[in-house]
């Protein structure tokens, strides 16, 4: 009997020890300790280094405020770390999410069931200046402001904003007799015909990453929505449409380009590096990529001894042009912070995007100048005259009609849906699948993902 009692006591103690580890309550990091944690999804010296530099400058100007910057490999990793940090109660104040995750950021709730993020406009509450930093929200360029506004509320501070543009190897173009960078599908096809006739010419005419962003851009150009309720802008998107006529047209065009030997597929989805490497090795004459690569592509052309000219993303001349949309990412402000931390975070966000910093960021990367005053500043400096390639993305975005299609879709589970789109495109390019059939299957799969999401997040 005594033995049993001992045994039970031992077991009880052990169990209590284990359980006590699990019940440690998690407290949110809301103390007004003056620390602003900023998580960004870059790890390279140029881009992460820029944020670190600005953080230091901000700290120097604001005594008692610390800005701690942490870099992550990619948006997906950051997204997950954020979820874990929320559960652990040590989440950062400012988080860098890409545009496709906007619906998910709006829907995100913490362990307490409260929204994770708050609207920067609401937090600013009409102030002109926070801790001495002038507020730049009203100054943000329209396409970015529209993208990150939901129901009229400007939610997050846009940062690295880009658009898809086309880079041309001017040296190869001149050899083939292509005088102007093609603006439409038809002009591009003509140019490709000429380039394919070059003796000792490049392996193919053009390449771009198989990334869902291109399909989204093409839908913007064709003024076709990807989701119902005005692309998720007038209400939650509950229906996805991946097999619209515009999408079939685009993928058919792409498949034809591949089958004619004009398009080089690197064989890997979302292959930003491989496509750019093909362009810098002069294996293709044209590259479609993010405008945020402009600076790097310029550098590579100097090393490789060829000239680069940038132009708009080609559109179908037979379809009325709707407009191109933005890509890139934005900075979200966490909710549940005390007043001091909120103001310090807001002040940092506005400082980060003040005209000088926004212009500098544009120059180091090629992302569009995010405020109108930054554009003015750069124009006055004569920057665009010297670097016309850097102006293309802004000009292209300005051409867009303010329609839901050209603003961009807001949809739940969109990160996963993007994978469905690229998988379908790969089957169409590599496997030669029938475009309509394959898109139909992708549409079903994506609808299932969206239904799942809506069930979990809106309960319907």
């Amino acid at each position: 009997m005594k033995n049993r009692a001992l045994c039970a006591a031992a077991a009880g103690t052990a169990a209590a020890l284990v359980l006590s580890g699990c019940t440690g309550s998690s407290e949110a990091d809301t103390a007004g300790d003056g620390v602003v944690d900023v998580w960004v999804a870059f790890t390279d010296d140029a881009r992460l280094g820029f944020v670190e530099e600005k953080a230091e400058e901000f700290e120097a100007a604001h005594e008692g405020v610390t800005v701690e910057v942490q870099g992550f490999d990619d948006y997906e990793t950051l997204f997950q770390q954020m979820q874990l940090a929320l559960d652990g109660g040590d989440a950062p104040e400012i988080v860098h999410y890409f545009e496709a995750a906007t619906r998910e950021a709006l829907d995100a709730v913490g362990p307490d069931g409260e929204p994770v993020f708050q609207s920067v406009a609401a937090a600013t509450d009409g102030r002109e200046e926070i801790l001495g930093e002038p507020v730049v929200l009203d100054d943000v360029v329209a396409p970015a402001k529209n993208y990150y506004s939901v129901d009229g509320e400007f939610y997050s501070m846009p940062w690295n904003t880009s658009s898809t543009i086309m880079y041309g190897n001017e040296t190869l173009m001149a050899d083939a007799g292509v005088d102007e960078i093609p603006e439409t599908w038809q002009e591009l096809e003509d140019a490709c015909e000429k380039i394919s006739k070059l003796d000792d010419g490049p392996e193919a005419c053009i390449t771009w990453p198989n990334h869902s962003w291109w399909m989204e851009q093409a839908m913007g150009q064709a003024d076709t929505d990807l989701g119902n309720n005005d692309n998720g802008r007038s209400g939650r998107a509950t229906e996805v449409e991946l097999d619209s006529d515009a999408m079939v047209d685009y993928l058919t065009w792409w498949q034809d380009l591949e089958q004619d030997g004009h398009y080089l597929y690197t064989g890997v989805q979302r292959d930003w590096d491989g496509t750019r490497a093909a362009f810098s090795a002069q294996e293709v004459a044209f590259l479609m990529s993010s405008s945020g690569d402009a600076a790097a592509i310029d550098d590579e052309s100097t090393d490789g001894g060829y000239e680069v000219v940038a132009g708009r993303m080609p559109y179908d001349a037979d379809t009325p042009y709707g407009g191109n949309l933005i890509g890139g990412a934005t900075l979200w402000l966490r909710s549940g912070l005390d007043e001091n931390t909120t103001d310090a975070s807001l002040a940092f966000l506005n400082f980060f995007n003040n005209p000088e910093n926004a212009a500098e960021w544009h120059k180091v990367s090629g992302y569009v100048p995010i405020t109108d005053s930054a554009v003015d500043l750069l124009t006055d400096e004569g920057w665009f005259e010297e670097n016309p390639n850097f102006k293309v993305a802004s000009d292209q975005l300005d051409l867009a009609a303010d329609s839901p299609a050209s603003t961009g879709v807001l949809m739940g589970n969109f990160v996963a849906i993007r994978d469905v789109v690229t998988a379908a495109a790969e089957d169409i390019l590599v496997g030669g699948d029938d475009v309509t059939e394959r898109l139909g299957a992708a549409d079903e799969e994506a609808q299932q993902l969206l239904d799942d999401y809506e069930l979990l997040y809106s309960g319907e």
Partner: protein
Amino acid sequence: MLLILTVLATALVAVVASRGRLHPLVGGAVGLAGALATSWFFAGCALGGDVIGENTGVQRVLAVAAVLTVGAGLARTVAAVRAGGGTAGDGLLTELRSGMFRTRSWLPWLLLAPTLLVLAVFLYHPAFQTFALSTKLARMGAPRSADVCLSNFAELLVPSPYLVAGLPLAAVALVAGLTLWRARTTAGTGSHTVAAALAPLGPIAVVVALYFVFAPGRTGYRGVYVATVGISLGIVALSMAAGLALAYLVARRFRGASVYRTLLIWPYAVSPPVAGILFFMMFDPTAGVMAHLADVVGLDFPSYRSDGVLAQAAIVLAASWKWVGHNILFYVAALQTVPREIIEAAAIDGAGQWRRFARIVVPSIAPVTFFLLVTNLTYAFFDVYGTIDYLTRGGPSGQTTVAIYEIIRVGVGTGDLGRGAAQSAILFIAVIGLTVWQFRRSEGRITYGGGA
């Protein structure tokens, strides 16, 4: 309905298993652990297919009840053993009494408790969590989760969800039942003959179940099964064959043999992603070394990234290269244990080099081969993610998307925990099944040497 069936089947297994012949402890534990698992991860089904919202206490009550039942079962078994009832009970009692802990049988359990606790917290609990998750629609960070019963599995095993979800279970049950029947009947009696005659039914059921899994003409997860089987078998075959061949060459005595050995084992120290990067650099169709060499010779180097078969071959090559050092390591050690006298005797008897290798060396190192088969298979199933991610990212067209890659893509990449868990459960079952099958097949064929 399914829940009731599963519980009944589990109870049946428990009753059959615990009847005298088999160990009461094993029988009780197996049966009740089955009930625990069932009540845990089928709790969602009992509540109906589409219940939304936080999981109610029902599941917890069921879990606690199951734990209590298991506890009670164990207590009863222990009591039975103590009382010495039945032949098996006597056997266990004798066994226990022959050990060190003759009178205080709780002492070993107490001493084992820390280990068991660690295992329970860090191994069994997450494993059960995975099974529980696999019946849910759950997303990382989502405010709610929904019970979807078996539909996560059904998606992986179309055409008809319930038919196919039930089929592998039925196949396993049939095989187990037939084996048990055959084991319980004595040779020569009529029922044994019937049991023996029915025995092929088991494998047939397995084949039918596999047909539905691999049946052509359906999209989705089927490609993952095909890629997994192809790539895994390729890796196991290549890395073991190359491992044995290289080990056989360096196991001879010659100058600098140890240096060669060290160099050969080197790739084992390379991590899977690095292996991926290395082969990426070599085989890159535009900037790679191989493409350059082919260019020099005047050949057109094909791109493995747009050709499914080449892509699979590249993965097999890279993953085998990384792992071959591990196999060499074990084979070199094994080859040193092959008795020289026998080989010399065979040589005197006129057996040639190849014959000596095939007839003496290979059988002598069979235990190591078997051990390597298990570890290689585990490696091929679980450790190739990094290699694939850097080499092909699962492409082209998903032809190098193996199970583990898809699990990580779905479960971690897109945060779809339920589907990821269901896929891991399938992989788990497949690996366990393969390992058990290997053990079964190799029993009696492998000589472990030594004093046996």
